């Protein structure tokens, strides 16, 4: 896993003391998170307490998937187009929190799937097939989140992970996972959570 938290730019453009000779007055915009390295380091530490987490991180280290922690409030996740993991968290975040960790686990699993040959289809060629693929991948990666959270039951981090699952509307899916329900029943819980998100609520 490559950790890229700096936003120094490539430095390829000619730049004067106040930017690129006046053509871009916003050249100083910075996206890298000031605590990105600490957040990633702590995430590795927590994931090392989970056998599945260890495997996931090892695979991504081996494949050198870039991981960027960016300041911001937008979406986080794995981008199959850029083949990198982008995590956004407010600039005021000073340490790892459960939301970041859950997003990271989900993104790591999706990256592993992509690298394992389950390539994301082009949405422009068949949008229905694309939607089916995205839902199947979501279900798989959230199931992996549940698996790792369960493995972290004895970790000091477990209570905040449970709180975060609840906040994200995934607590019923986690309960279903613990109950060992069928894949179909797990999908039903996923569908309920998804519908809840898309009503504008959690």
């Amino acid at each position: 896993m490559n950790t890229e938290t700096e936003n120094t730019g490539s430095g390829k453009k000619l730049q004067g003391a106040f930017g690129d000779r006046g053509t871009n007055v916003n050249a100083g915009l910075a996206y890298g998170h000031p605590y990105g390295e600490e957040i990633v380091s702590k995430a590795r530490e927590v994931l090392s307490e989970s056998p599945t987490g260890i495997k996931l991180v090892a695979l991504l280290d081996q494949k050198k998937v870039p991981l960027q922690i960016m300041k911001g409030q937008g979406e986080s996740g794995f981008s199959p187009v850029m083949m990198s993991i982008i995590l956004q968290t407010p600039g005021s975040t000073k340490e790892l929190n459960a939301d970041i960790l859950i997003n990271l686990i989900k993104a790591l699993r999706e990256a592993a799937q992509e690298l394992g040959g389950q390539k994301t289809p082009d949405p422009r060629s068949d949008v229905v097939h694309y939607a089916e693929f995205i839902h199947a991948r979501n279900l798989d990666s959230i199931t992996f989140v549940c698996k790792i959270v369960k493995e972290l039951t004895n970790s000091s981090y477990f209570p905040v992970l449970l709180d975060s699952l609840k906040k994200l509307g995934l607590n019923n899916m986690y309960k279903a996972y613990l109950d060992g329900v069928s894949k179909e029943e797990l999908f039903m819980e996923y569908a309920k959570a998804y519908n809840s998100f898309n009503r504008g609520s959690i």
Partner: protein
Amino acid sequence: MHWQRLDRETSVKVIDSVKSDANAGLFSIGTSEVQRARLPFYKDYFVYKVTNFASLPSFSFEYLGDGTFFQYLDGTEAPIIAVNDKGQLNLDHNNVLAYLEFYFAHAIGEDGDIILINNPHDMPLLESLDIDSYNAVFAQHKPVQIHYDGGYDAYEIDADLYKDSQVVRARIEVNSKGRVTIKDQKMTMQQVSGSGYPEAII
């Protein structure tokens, strides 16, 4: 907020202004769109949103800008304060609440998100509460009260806030430079169950 999608030429200018060489893939002109919304409390500044639709999740970034200068909304109060200090802020009795809602939505403190409950009937996220919490929020809700203190040139706002999984009645001061201070707060509901913010990961 009423978002307006910008035309291609203007979008390209905005993306050129805010893009980062280190994250060129996130600011691809071919797969991104730019939206803009007016803010009633700023004279010449708008909020801009750049969204890359190349894949799911769609990564998005928001800015305060006048079309030339942009401040990245990184989840801290710094960009808001920077624009305020340019003399752009024009607070009055009619727009101070909109400012406060915008501030809480974009300046995330170390303790996490704060949501101002202005009209609970217009807050889809409350639908995610369990029935007891949902009823209690409505039963205990009091309308927002705004008072201008000429001596301090500041507004005092009494409002219900959702923070730390609790609903509190708070007195918030917003001064003419847009600095926000929570001066007093009293818990009205502890441990709201099943609540959360729209931080969809699915």
